[in-house]
């Protein structure tokens, strides 16, 4: 394994993924062998209002012609060869959405729950207070039926799902499941709203759009869970999840989003998260990437309004031959905006992380404070950490414009300190690594969700180190 260097993942590296099937022709690292069937897209478009059909068709045309990576800066750091999606087909149509169900389905402390499994809506529930305040949690199908004007404004917005991004256009052309969460002006939702997607059925693509809109002065928190569906993993055949989270924050709104991605090892995940942040509004991302075979994620933060701010904390905990390909773009447009971005990766086995972050400070963005930090810990000789923290600056009149990055082994002095307190070496190493990843755990808004994330991290540590011991 250590002998492999550049783009070590090959299509059939996973073994079971290709067993018993004809071997695909060798593909380049930027080639994707997923076909979105035009007839299927047409069959949806025919049932939809004209504006939505036009929107889908335009996106489909772009999906067909765009490169997977449109940004020249990053074309050498992309590797989709382990994705074997030739046999993967989208779900034909979503099952009928139920009316919002009774609040009894809600976990403790949560104000709402949308639980979707593959093509089925399992639960759609809001607590009484939120419902009374006018909060909407609905499927996109329901949203279009009940409030077409608002649906059109939010879905046919060209600023969300970037037009030059091929995978964003895949989501835009191929979605047939979706959610909307709208919080009216001035409403503060106390408990978090959980949006749960279960994906990973072999040979199936779950393609979704999720819209979150907060009116002026509103506040809410969202936990987005990406978990394996019960159908998962049969025969090791791959599945695709491609989904968006499109955030619109009006003046003074506050939103916290915790994303926990723990999909199964047969799943290829494409994620697009876009946020438009108006004057005085605040967005906080806490994102944990643990699962899937390949994750290719993109976050776009547009700080449009004066004094808007974004905080983004992301952790990666990789093992086996996982690849985490994470890009984040933060554009400062308004005056006195703040961006604070932190990415941390701990890599076991032959896992890889490509962390690409670009901060753009436009000429209009006087008084910007922007920081980007990318930190890595390689826990195995076969692991590979790539960091590309970039800055493009047209306005020097900033409070701060900086990035920093470091990669290092487990700190020996920390280890020594913990051991001197009687903690066994293995336990001490675990403390240090999980402590390194703690910033995201601490930001998850629900205690039960925090516990779940800690358990996932510990289980992954246990599995990863067991593997390392047996390999040694």
């Amino acid at each position, binding site marked *: 394994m250590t002998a492999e260097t550049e783009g070590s993942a090959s299509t059939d590296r996973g073994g079971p993924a290709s067993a018993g099937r004809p071997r695909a022709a060798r593909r380049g690292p930027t080639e994707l062998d997923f076909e979105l069937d035009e007839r299927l897209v047409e069959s949806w478009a025919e049932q939809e209002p004209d504006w939505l059909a036009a929107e889908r068709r335009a996106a489909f045309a772009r999906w067909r012609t765009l490169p997977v990576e449109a940004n020249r800066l990053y074309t050498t750091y992309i590797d989709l060869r382990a994705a074997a999606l030739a046999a993967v087909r989208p779900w034909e149509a979503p099952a009928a959405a139920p009316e919002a169900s009774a609040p009894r389905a809600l976990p403790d402390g949560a104000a709402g729950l949308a639980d979707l499994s593959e093509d089925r809506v399992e639960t759609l529930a809001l607590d009484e207070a939120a419902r009374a305040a006018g909060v909407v949690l609905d499927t996109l199908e329901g949203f279009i039926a009940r409030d077409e004007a608002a649906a059109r404004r939010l879905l046919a917005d060209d600023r969300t799902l970037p037009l030059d991004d091929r995978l964003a256009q895949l989501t835009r052309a191929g979605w047939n499941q979706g959610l909307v969460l709208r919080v009216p002006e001035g409403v503060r939702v106390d408990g978090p709203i959980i949006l749960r997607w279960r994906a990973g059925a072999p040979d199936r693509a779950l393609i979704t759009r999720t819209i979150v809109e907060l009116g002026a002065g509103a506040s809410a928190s969202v936990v987005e869970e990406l978990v394996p569906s019960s159908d998962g993993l049969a025969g090791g055949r791959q599945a695709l999840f491609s989904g968006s989270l499109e955030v619109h924050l009006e003046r003074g709104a506050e939103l916290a989003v915790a994303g926990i991605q723990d999909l199964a090892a047969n799943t290829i995940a494409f994620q697009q998260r876009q946020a438009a942040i108006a004057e005085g509004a605040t967005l906080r991302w806490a994102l944990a990437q643990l699962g899937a075979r390949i994750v290719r994620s993109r976050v776009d933060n547009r700080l449009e309004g004066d004094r808007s701010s974004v905080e983004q904390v992301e952790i990666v905990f990789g093992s086996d031959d996982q690849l985490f390909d994470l890009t984040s773009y933060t554009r400062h447009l308004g005056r006195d905006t703040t961006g604070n971005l932190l990415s941390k990766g701990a890599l076991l086995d032959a896992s890889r992380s490509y962390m690409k972050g670009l901060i753009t400070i436009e000429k209009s963005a006087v008084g910007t404070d922007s920081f980007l930090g990318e930190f890595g810990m390689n826990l195995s000789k076969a692991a590979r950490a790539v960091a590309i923290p970039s800055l493009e600056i047209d306005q*020097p009149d900033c409070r701060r414009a900086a990035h920093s990055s470091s990669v290092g082994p487990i700190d020996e002095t920390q280890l020594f300190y913990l051991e001197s307190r009687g903690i066994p070496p293995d336990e001490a190493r675990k403390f240090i690594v999980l402590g390194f990843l703690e910033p995201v755990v601490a930001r998850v808004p629900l205690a039960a969700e925090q516990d779940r994330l800690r358990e996932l991290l510990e289980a992954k540590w246990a599995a990863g180190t067991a593997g390392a011991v047996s390999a040694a």
Partner: protein
Amino acid sequence: MASTRELVQDRRDEYAFHDDIVYLAETKRGLSRDTVIEISRFKNEPEWMLAFRLRAYDHFLGRPMPEWGGDLSKIDFDKIVYYRKPSEREEKSWDDVPEKIKQTFEKLGIPEAERKFLAGVGAQYDSEVVYHSVREELTKIGVVFMGTDQALIEYPEIFRQYFGTVVPPEDNKFAALNSAVWSGGSFVYVPKGVEVPLPLQAYFRINGENTGQFERTLIVVDEGAKVHYIEGCTAPIYATDALHVAVVEVIALPGSKVRYTTIQNWSNDVYNLVTKRAHAHERARVEWIDANTGSRLTMKYPAIYLRGEGATADIISVAVAGRGQHQDTGAKAVHLAPNTRSRIVSKSVSKDGGRATYRGQLKVSPGATGVVASVRCDALMLDDISRSDTYPYIDIQEDDTTMTHEATVGKVSAEQIFYLMSRGLTENEATNLIVQGFLEVFTKELPMEYAIEFNRLVKLEMEGSLG
């Protein structure tokens, strides 16, 4: 800042000059297979070099233009003269140098500099080394310092052993172009254990409208030896585009120490596209000290491949981008062996609509255990019509690497200016002082007369109004 901007104007053209030289031989404009063969025949080269040139030419034709970096679309390869020979032979002494060329050198201050400090001079006038003098003692201790063309004839074995091994023609499109049409440049060989006591210096100039400069420098430093090589450039200004495509190869054998210092000040119409790379073997130390103030577009990323255990790399890269300029510069450290260290420091200044880009790579390959590396990039922007970009690539494939990277972008603070003005400085002087201080990490590495020259250059850039 507005007042500073109004006061700053580019006056470098006053220091550029052009002499009419009769060229004794030159190729037709444009590049063809015949041009390449003609150059090789002019020089009476051995067959292997012609084969090398043709292999490079074929690669150049097939290789697409890079789509990243700066705007290369205005380069017209058909308008360039690829080879010019201003005199028939290498001149042995100052007296033999043609009067016209001598006047040019005098404007550059070479004779005086030589008297004072120079250990040897290899001055390139257009595409050929015409003047060369190596001090007696250097010859005595076995140091070879001569034109690259001459070295191909006089030291064929060592030349062939190393030429093209650090930068093969297939490395990039411009390395291929240089490999096909190269002429001139310096060759340095320092024998085992020899420390060259004074810096070796070469002056480069472009002359002649649309003349390309395709020099090729090869520096081989044997075990335990030590050398400091300095190149500086000036160029006259022309309306149409000039092209400078150089390749520099440095081989630092075990335990050696090499420093390569560049002050690049091409005129603002020059495309400066240079591949500089060093191989550092066991316990060797290589330093690139690189400043770019001129040219229309510079794309240059001095690289060090740390091939031997315990090798050290140190790169200081400085860029000043003014009106109409794009400095796309940076550094590259590739760790291939255990216990190697690298340090990259980059400082850029952009002003008057100029664009300064740092583009760098730090790579730790599997097997390179115990690496310690750091990258630091600072950018200073003097107005809000300029632009600053930072693109560092960090790729770590070992589990015990210690790597840190920091980057900041900012402006000259009003408080600093105010403080200095309260001490009696004008706003221009204050800004100049702050910029010089910002670049000091570079300046303090220069020999004294170069440091003075560089500060004067920065001052000219900053304070067009003073005089």
